Structure formats: C-alpha cells, structure tokens
C-alpha cells in the first residue's frame, strides 16, 4: 500500500494548558484532495504549522510521505509546497525575483509551467512586492507553490483576496494537479470551495476532528435553509419529512430541510406564497446545528490560538 501523503497520529498542541489541537488523527491518501474545514480558531492553521514543522507538537506525530514532520522536515519539504492565507514577503524583491528564489530553494522549478501560471493568473512579475495588493501577493505565493509541481500542496485558505475569476482559475489548477496525481490538503472555511474540489472532508472544531468522510458520506451536513413569506396564514410544516428548525414570525417562515425538498414544496404549493428564498446554510449554521454541543472551547482559549 502506498505511503500516505499526510498522516497524523494523536497530534496534540497545547498553549498555556489549553489544547489548540487535541489527539488529531488524519490521513491524506496520495492523489487525493482533502478539505479541512472549521470556523476561525478551530485549529486549522495550527495543524498546518505542525505538519510543516514550524511549531512543535506537545504530543503525537505527523508525517509527510513517511517523513517525520519534525525530525525529517527537509526531506518532507522536498515533496511539498505551501500557500499561507496571509503572506509576508520581502517587500524589496520583485515578483520575478521572489519566484526565482523560491523555485531555486525548492529545486524542482518547472519554468514553462511558471510562465503559464503567470499568464493564467494575470500576474505582473516585474513589480516590487511592496506595491502588490493582497490579491496579487496571494497570486504570487500560489504560483510559487504550483510551479514546482510538488507531490503535496498544503493550502491554507489560499483564495483569500482573490477575485471570483482568479478563484475559478485556482480551482482549475488544483484539479489539474489532482489529475497529475498530486495530493492536496486544502484548509478553508468556504464550503463551496471545498465542495467543488475535495474528495473527502474533515471538520475540525475547537481543536478536535468532529467528522471526516467523503462528501456523500457527509450529505447530512448539506441542509437547505428555506425562507418563505405568505400572503395569508403560514402552513404547519413541522411534520414534513426532513424539515427542522422551524421558526414562524408573522407571515414569515424559516426552516431547515435535510434531503429531498419535494415534500415541503408540496405543502407550500397549497399556501399562497408571496416570496420564496432558499440557500445553503453557512458553515456557521451547520456547526450550530450539528456540533453546537462540541463547541465548548472557552473564549479565552480561542483568543490564545491566534494562529487561526
């Protein structure tokens, strides 16, 4: 069996007696895209920094293609590239110089692909880093990571600051990487991004992995929020299969629907609906609905884990 791209066993990081990450056990298979979801302060960035060997675990181990993240960091880093959500680069270097430096350091630069990426992301490499906007700085680190064609891409909220067009380009690049057999560890709090790209999803909350599986296995998370305004009386939908969290405020009805929406639509069709809105619940709503009981990290601990 092929060695895992990423494997953590009982990985724990404690700050001032509070677990930022507790007993984390995850595995990313080769050629797989794993989405790593969680609200702010869940421990996503802390996990990534542990994987990269930038911080030391309190207990447990992590490895990249079998190389220990701490003791064999250099060997592990030969196989990966990393994109942080916030980039602090050398302001006096130009984009081209930065790409040259990072490519030379990694040692596996694909110059033709770099030039292609520069074009696809509409990036201007001749400018100095200090003159780049946040979005352009993010493009720079994305290109730097993709151009070395690493076996593993570790992406920490990689599209922050990118416009929708560039987000689409980013998604295409990640899917191309997957086609070439590269593995991707994508940390995000954007459900749509994760849904569009990932084979499996892990959900982190308050430093603990609370769910992990394929998207179909986690279908129970994908409830819809329905909001309907009626001209007359609001119908009773509490007994409709799949409907929950029903709230009525005057002529306004709001509820959650898990699974098929057809039974609810049948009930609504018999009432005089003035306006009907449906939307996917935000990740925050999903957490409140499914993991509220687990979200018990004290406020102080969230503040302490400033990396996230």
């Amino acid at each position, binding site marked *: 069996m092929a060695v895992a791209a990423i494997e953590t066993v009982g990985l724990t990081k404690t700050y001032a007696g509070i677990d930022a990450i507790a007993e984390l056990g995850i595995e990313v298979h080769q050629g797989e895209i794993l989405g790593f979801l969680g609200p702010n302060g869940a421990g996503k960035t802390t996990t990534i920094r542990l994987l990269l060997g930038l911080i030391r675990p309190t207990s447990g181990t992590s490895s990249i293609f079998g190389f220990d993240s701490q003791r064999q960091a250099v060997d592990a880093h030969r196989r990966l590239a990393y994109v942080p959500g916030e980039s602090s680069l050398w302001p006096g270097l*130009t984009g081209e110089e930065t790409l*040259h430096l990072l490519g030379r350091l*990694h040692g596996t630069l694909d110059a033709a692909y770099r030039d292609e990426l520069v074009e696809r992301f509409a990036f201007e490499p001749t400018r100095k880093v200090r003159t780049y906007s946040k979005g352009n700085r993010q493009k720079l680190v994305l290109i730097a990571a993709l151009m070395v064609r690493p076996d593993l891409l570790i992406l920490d909220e990689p599209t922050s600051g990118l416009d929708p067009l560039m987000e689409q380009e980013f998604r295409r690049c990640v899917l191309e990487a997957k086609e070439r057999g590269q593995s991707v560890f994508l940390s995000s709090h954007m459900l749509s991004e994760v849904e569009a790209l990932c084979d499996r999803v892990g959900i982190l909350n308050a430093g603990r992995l609370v769910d992990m599986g394929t998207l179909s296995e986690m279908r129970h998370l994908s409830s819809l929020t329905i909001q309907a305004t009626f001209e007359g009386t609001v*119908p009773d939908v509490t007994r409709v299969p799949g409907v929950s969290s029903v*709230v009525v405020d005057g002529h306004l009805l709001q509820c959650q629907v898990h699974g098929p929406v057809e039974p609810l639509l049948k009930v609504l069709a018999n009432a005089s609906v003035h306006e009907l809105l449906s939307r996917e619940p935000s990740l925050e709503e999903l957490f409140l609905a499914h993991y509220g009981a687990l979200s018990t990290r004290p406020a102080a601990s969230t503040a302490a884990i400033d990396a996230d």
Partner: protein
Amino acid sequence: MAATSAPAATAHMECPRELTSTRRVLPFGVVLARTSRQALRSGAMWGLIFGIYTALQAVAYTLTYKTKAERLALAKSLSSSGGLSALTGPARDLQTVGGYTAWKSLGLLSVIGAIWALLLATKLFRGEEDAGRTEVLLAGPTTRRAATVQTLVGLLVGLVALFACTSVLVALIGRARDVHWAPSASLFYALCVSSGAVLFMAVGAFTSQLVASRRKAAAYAGAAVGIAYVVRMVSDASAGATWMHWITPFGWIEELGAFTSPSPTALLPLAGATSLLVAATIWLSGARDLGAGVLRERADARAHTALLGGPVGLAARLTGPTITVWVAGISAFGLLLGGVANVAAKSLEASPSVRAALARLGGHAGLVKSYLGVSFLTVTLLVMLLAASQVTAARREEATGRVEHLLVQPVARARWMLSRLALGAVAVVLAGTLAGVFAWLGSVSQHAHVGFFDLLEAGINAVPAGLFLLGIGALAWSLTPRHATACVYAALVWSFLVEVLAGIGHQSHWLLDTSIFHHIAPAPAVSPQWVGALALVGLGALATALGVARFSRRDLAGS
C-alpha cells in the same frame, strides 16, 4: 401558528451591559496611547543611560584631575587641537568639572540621541504603516493628519522621558561636593543632550513621509545625521570654518554651551528647524496616499537574481546595503582616528596626569599608540553595534513571518540561522580589519609613524568582541525571541557602562569581568591578547551552537 422550535431565533437578543453602555474610546487617545507607551519606555531607558554616562564622566574627572594645576594643564593642552576638536568637539573650560563633562559627553550623547530618535520616529511612523497597523487605526473616526499629530505627541512623551531621566541623574550628581553644579545647569545640559534627539526625531518623521519603506526612511534620516556630523567636524577642525557651526544641528548644540557659557540663542535654529519639519510632516501625511511616499518610486524593476539562489545569497541581498554602510562608516572612523592621532597625542603630552594614565595603558609604546589604544575601544563599540544590528535584522525575518517562506522549503533551520550569523560574522571581521587599515592610512597621512601591522592588529582585535556578542545574541534570540533585541543591546550597554566605570578607579574584578570590553586589550598601545581573544571567539561560537540547536527545536515566534 406559533414557532415550534428554535425559539432563540425569534427572541430579541439581550445586549450585554458593556455593549449597551456608551463608554467610548476617544479617537485621539488610540494612536497616542500606542505610540506614547513605546516612546516612554525607550526614552526613559536612554535617559537613564545618558544620565549615568554623564555622571560617570563627572566623577572620573574629579578623581583623575584632583588639583587645580592639573586641571589647568589639561585645559591648556587640549584647547587648541583642531584634530581632536574634529573628533570630540571643541574643548572649553576643561579646568571645570562641567566643562570637561560637557566635552566628553555632549558630542557623543547628542549623536546617539539623534540616532535613537530617528529610529524610533521611523519605526512609529513608517514601520507601523509598513505593518498595516496604521491602516486599521485610520479606519476609525480619525484622519491621517490627526493620527500624525497623535504620533508626534507620543514621540514627544518619549523625549520628555529622555530629558527628565537625564536631568534628574545629572542634577543628583551635581549635588556631590566635588562636582557641584546648579540644578538649572543640569536642566540646561539635559536640554542640550535632548535637543539633537528632538530635531532628528522630526527628521525621521519627515523622511517617513518621503519614502515608502521604514528602511529607506531610516537611511535618509541617518544620512542627514552623517552629513550634519561631518559638517560639524569640518567646522571644529578649521579656524576659518567656524561659520559652518551655524549650518549643522550638532554645531547648534555646541553653541548652546552647556556647563560652560550657556547661550539659549542657539535653541532658536533648533526650534525653527524642528517646527518646520513637524509642520511639513503633518501636511505631507494628509497630502499623500497611505502606503506611498511623496517621492514616487518606480513600481517596476529589473530582476537581479544573481544572489537569489539560497539562504546565504538572500541574506546578502537583504542586508548587503546596510552592512556596506556600517563597514564604510567604521572604516571612515578608523581613518579619522589615524588622522588625528599625532595631534591628539602631542596635545596630551602637556598633561602629566593624562600622560601617566596613558603610559600605564601603553607601557613604553609611546603616546600616539597609547592614544590609539584607548580610541580603538570606540571601534570595538561600533563593531559590537554592527553585530547587534545583525542579530536584530535576523530576528526581524522571523518576527515578520518572512522566514517561513524559506523554512517550508528544503532548507534546514540550522542552515538558515547559520547563514545569517555567518554573514554577520563576515561583516564584523571586515569592519574591524578595515578600521585598522584605514587608521593606518590616516596615520600615514599625518606622519604618525605607527606600523601597518600594529594598526591592522588593533582593528582585528575588535573582532572577537563583535563575534562574541553575535553568539550571545544568537543564544538570546533562540531562547527568548521576543526579547532578543533588548537582550543583545542590554549586554552592549552594560559592557560600555562598566568600562566607563573602570576608568574612574579601582572596581571589583567580578564587575569588570562582566564587561566584554574588559577582555579586549587596548591595542595598539599593548599587544592584543590573542589567547583571550580566541577564548572570546570560542565562547561566542559555543553560544551560537547552543542557539542554533535551540532554534532548530522551538516553535517559530512572530512579533
């Protein structure tokens, strides 16, 4: 139909008490509180150092020149030396404690104060802007000009702290029977010492408006200090150029005549220049774009990738210009030392007690070598400052998170840290060696007859202290990263103060051993103690090794 579930969704949220209250943080207080806190701490610390240094000079004088005859001989011998005046400023009223103290302290402290002030000003103006914190504050109910005024007031708090701490300590020593100067004279002296800081703080604030990076703003302001100092040197060295005193801030400070012939008139150009710079700073801060400077830089630049192949090359690219300025400055100082050595030694010959003191240092080496032996301790100080700045620059790479881009590549932490420290070590070796070479060139130009190898040795003799401090800095950085800068400069300042204390009289051997300077022989007055120097280098290497080992095993720490 009533709601059947999730009642919380329709219920009105009851606001916590603290949110409903109308307690407001006044916009004026936000920036002011931030800047004044930093400036106060820094200003108070430097004020204490200035006060202690001044007090030590006064005490040293009373202990060294006990009789009136000795004091008059000293005054006579040093009052007409143009070369020495260029270096230290004109010697006035050296037959008095105040005159000697002002001569020994004012020139040095006003330059240090100027550098401190410009670094603080550029940090709190352009440094905050570079870090993006100014943008966050400006999103609040304030304007750029109002924020600039607040920052200036915050800096003023630092200046007041500098003035207050200096004046209190100087007034205290003035109460000593042998010193005996009036409290008003102490206040005026502290004002003179602080006035360089006032003006160059305004210069730093102004250059922060001109250019779009803190490094450049500090470099421009630093260049202004350098030019002002050179003009002051020229005006003091030549009798025909005294008018030049009135075109340099350091000349104005000398004209103030602290402890000798107080002349507050010279405060006028200082106040005028400061006011103009402050007004220009406030106006420009509102007239330019945030994140940009008044002087437009080209956004595009041709790529220079020759050095960008690894951590060492990157370090050279990032710190090369700064190191070049340091090395050039220390070399120039060496040239100056060599150039004035002959004249200074001849002047000192007239003073029996100074001659005796220098002879104790140099044995039979002659007064020129003895004078250079003492003076080269300043070269050692500069080389150590260079080493400290290299530790600070390396730590900054970690604090800003930039190093993470390197350490997620196949680059071991030890390799990166060692490459930074190695570059610092090369800079230290280069600076010390060139100081010796240029001192010889200076001495040759004045027919001082000091051997090339003597002065080369004297320059190399400064290197171990720098390498030791580099090692200590590396250890402090790895153990307590957020306090590394404070630790390395504290070691430097402590060593310097103990060395000054050593000049006063007999001190505890334990105390003297804590000073790095105490382990450096005053070459070329005496031969360098190479065994001791090697031990110092060895200890520095050990500290570096421990630091690298620790750095490889700890969490990276941001700012």
